[in-house]
């Protein structure tokens, strides 16, 4: 057995333009139902990865800041202890996983998630018949009453393990994941290389290298969730003095 991996992601906010490519890539990869107008109005639209936009300042010195937010795969995940049926837990590769078979839909986890990245299926998903052709066979279509969230595209990791390690006898790492199109869908899509994914236990991986950038910080770090997603600060030469570090 290979040494233990810990999957992590680095998000460089200075590269992100807010273009939404990751959001739709995720939608396509993970069989997320179409967010219809009524879903927006009833506040039930699902985006496993979303881009939050934060306004700063007033006209004309106004700034829009973008931050992609997805499941942070916390080491001390607040969603895990509140689940009465152990539907969400931490696996040995550092992933916070959601087991659809176990989930009974109490929604405690979503309530307890400080990042608001868990989404509940209030309805069975619906697609016109022809769109079923394009659903990803590697990902479960979640039915009504089930909680869902970002999985770091675990189906791709598993396929990579089966194919690269099992069949070809290779190693699953940054390079082989990239070469085989096994990177999470959002990472693959990003046109500015904002997102980096990989094994943070491997000091030579891209994700480890970028995580050592002095701009690194973790979202809501003070509450002690210890996320696996590491952000790199946005750079703004006009930022007020007190925010400078």
């Amino acid at each position: 057995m290979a040494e233990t991996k810990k999957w992590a992601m680095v998000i460089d906010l200075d590269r992100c333009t807010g273009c939404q490519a990751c959001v739709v890539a995720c939608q396509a990869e993970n069989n997320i139902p179409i967010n219809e107008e009524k879903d927006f109005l009833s506040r039930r639209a699902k985006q496993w990865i979303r881009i939050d936009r934060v306004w700063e300042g007033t006209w004309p010195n106004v700034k829009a800041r973008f931050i992609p937010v997805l499941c942070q795969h916390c080491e001390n995940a607040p969603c895990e202890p509140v689940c009465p049926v152990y539907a969400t837990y931490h696996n040995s590769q550092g992933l916070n996983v959601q087991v659809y078979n176990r989930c009974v839909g109490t929604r405690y986890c979503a309530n307890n998630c400080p990042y608001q990245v868990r989404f509940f299926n209030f309805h069975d998903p619906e697609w016109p018949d022809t769109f079923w052709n394009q659903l990803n066979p590697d990902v479960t279509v979640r039915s009504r009453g089930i909680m869902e969230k970002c999985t770091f595209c675990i189906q791709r990791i598993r396929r990579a393990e089966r194919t690269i390690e099992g069949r070809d006898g290779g190693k699953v790492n940054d390079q082989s994941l990239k070469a085989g199109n096994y990177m999470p869908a959002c990472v693959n899509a990003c046109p500015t290389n904002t997102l980096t994914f990989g094994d943070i236990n491997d000091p030579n991986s891209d994700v480890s290298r970028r995580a050592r950038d002095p701009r690194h910080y973790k979202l809501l770090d003070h509450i002690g969730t210890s996320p696996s997603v590491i952000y790199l600060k946005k750079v703004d030469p006009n930022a007020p003095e007190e925010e400078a570090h």
Partner: protein
Amino acid sequence: MKISRRNFLRLASFSTLGAVACNFFDEREFISQSPVQLPEDLVTGRDNWYATLCRQCSEAEGLVVRIMEGRAKKVQGNPQYPTNLGGHSIRCEAGLQNLYHPDRISGPLLRQGARGTGLYSPISWDQALDLLRGHLQAQTDRSRVLTVTGPLRGSMAHLTSAFTDAYGARHMAFQPMEDAAYDQVMQDVLGQQTSPTFDFKNANYVLSFGADFLGTWKAPVQFSKGYGEFRQGLGRRNRGTLVQVDSWFSLTAANADTWVPINPGMEGMLALSIAQVIISEGLAPQDRINQLTGGQGSSALDAYAPNIIAQQLGVPPLHGTEPHEVIREMARGFARSGSRSIAIGGSGASAHTNGAFNLAAIFALNFLVGSVGAEGGVVLNPPAPVPELAKTISAASTGEWHRTVADISNGRTGVVMLRGVNPVNDLPGDIGLQQTLNRDDIFVATFSSFMDETAEMADLILPERTPMEDWGDDVPSPGPGFEVIGMQQPVVNPLPGMNPMGFADILLQLSREIGLDGATPLNMPTYHHLLQDQARKIQALERGSVQNANFNSFWNSLLQQGGWWDRDATADSDPSMPNLAEIASRASQPIITGRTDGNTFNLIPFQTVSLADGSGANLPWLQSSSDPLTTVAWTTWVEISTLVADAIGLKEGDFVRVEGANGRSFVAQIYHHPAVPPNVIGIPVGQGHTASLRYSKGRGENPLHLLGLPLEEQTQSLAWAGTRVRIVPTGESSPIPKFEGIVPAFVPNQEEAIVKVTRG
């Protein structure tokens, strides 16, 4: 009925069976289907990634498509393809939904009822093509046939123009919000037939006037790839600075280090002002200044000195700096980076009556710092290495369209063939194409996969193969600075029951039947053969990323890589310097037309990253994708400055009537926008479809219909940013569909900001 035990059991089983049949299972779960034919990719029994091209927008990114069991599952950027380097946009992703869209037209349709009523009956391809051929052959004056396509490049441009030339038809390309002014200025100022690209990766200072290059302008994925490196590239010494001059808060303005708001249409004058500072402060080499000004020095530009003109430009004080000082700082920053500075103009800057002047003044700045053709500057693109692929057909200007539509209404057109465009919806309403087509002496044929507004006016609808089912090639424009030819291959077969045909194959068949097939390319049996013929010419170059003496191996590698490119084959032209004094002499104020009474604003119709020009409005992924800045989806909204909205008493979600320059108006909802300048409102284009497509019908409005027909003076392109509209509250209100607020925002906390910022 007596409830005996037997009866009870019978009843129970009956009802449960009924329940099972009614709603418990999807029958498909219990079926394992044997398809009739064996798609090639099933043989390997794994998912396969096939390289092809995205045809959702003009950028034509290289893609790889994941195929499983003969169905396309996922689209990703082709990491090898030199323009997009593995990145892709929302629109590429959504191309998949074109393929499996429930509203796709399955076979040729012939009009039954009156035009526009949507009554069609299916006919066979033989009947359909006989009919079309009959109409083409019946024309004694062959210039009475008008062929309309989108802008074309590569073999499709070669083939279509060969067909229209051989037949004698007129050919026009249509693109919503065309940018004829830009193409003209590239010729006038840079001396280029090809669109240049910008080396953001190595640039230090980017000064963009209106060009929303991170959003929808030209090739946003290619530019975004460079932008990422521009900000935080590995091994860069310092982070690049982006200054966006924009009359509206575009996505690029949102990402800029400094956004300089400006009165609409004044971008060119600001560029002259910057040039004046650079020249008068001696920030550029003197010989270059002499060349550019014809030895006049700054005197030709002194009328544009910042302190004279700042007021007129409408630049507000920024971070406590006076407007004229803001301009000086821009000029110094731009000049300091020397040849690693880029000045770009586009989108709003070109969409004014003085658009060509604006762009000329802006692009001339690059000569001042010597960044044309330099590393980290404006990179010129070579023409395609094979002459047959070098042909491009750019969109006709809106003025030209106006004349053409007048021609049609004068009865000087007998047959109109439209392929892959929707001008009935996308041309400004004042041109009146829809009314013009509504006459009996015209035969209208559309090549379209969907029943859009243009198809609804057609006599004959010929469903085209979607890009993922068809062959093609492309010479990207803008290219990456060297020769690239992209290959598009069918990655899946059409679904059972779908019976589309490729446009190129139809043209070739018509050529054979009409007898136009005397020479290449019209004598090719299929488009596939034509592409192979072109590939042989690429093979004969014996250079570049794919080389092989055996043609079959060459062809296979070409498809596998998604194209051919040669990084060493760069442009060798050395454009002559424009004359700044001459450009300054053409300086003019934009003519803003429209309403002047009441609450009037300058209307900026903009393209969002999802719907862009609206050609994909029927795709649910695009509709449901929230706009990056407002997070609104599924509808049209009016972006209005929070300050102004508060003053008028408009709240978010309030319906207002937007009254245009031409008496047209529509009702849309307000979005409170903290960053829109007070004199401007922004309304996204792309919605307002009336055709019966389930995801787009009756959603929102098309602001292009409010414009009237303002045209750029030199090139007659649509001056879409130069109209004033009036806003009248209707008193009605309802929540606006947006993502913002669905997820409760993080608790604002001074110590723990969500987006942390550092100064360097």
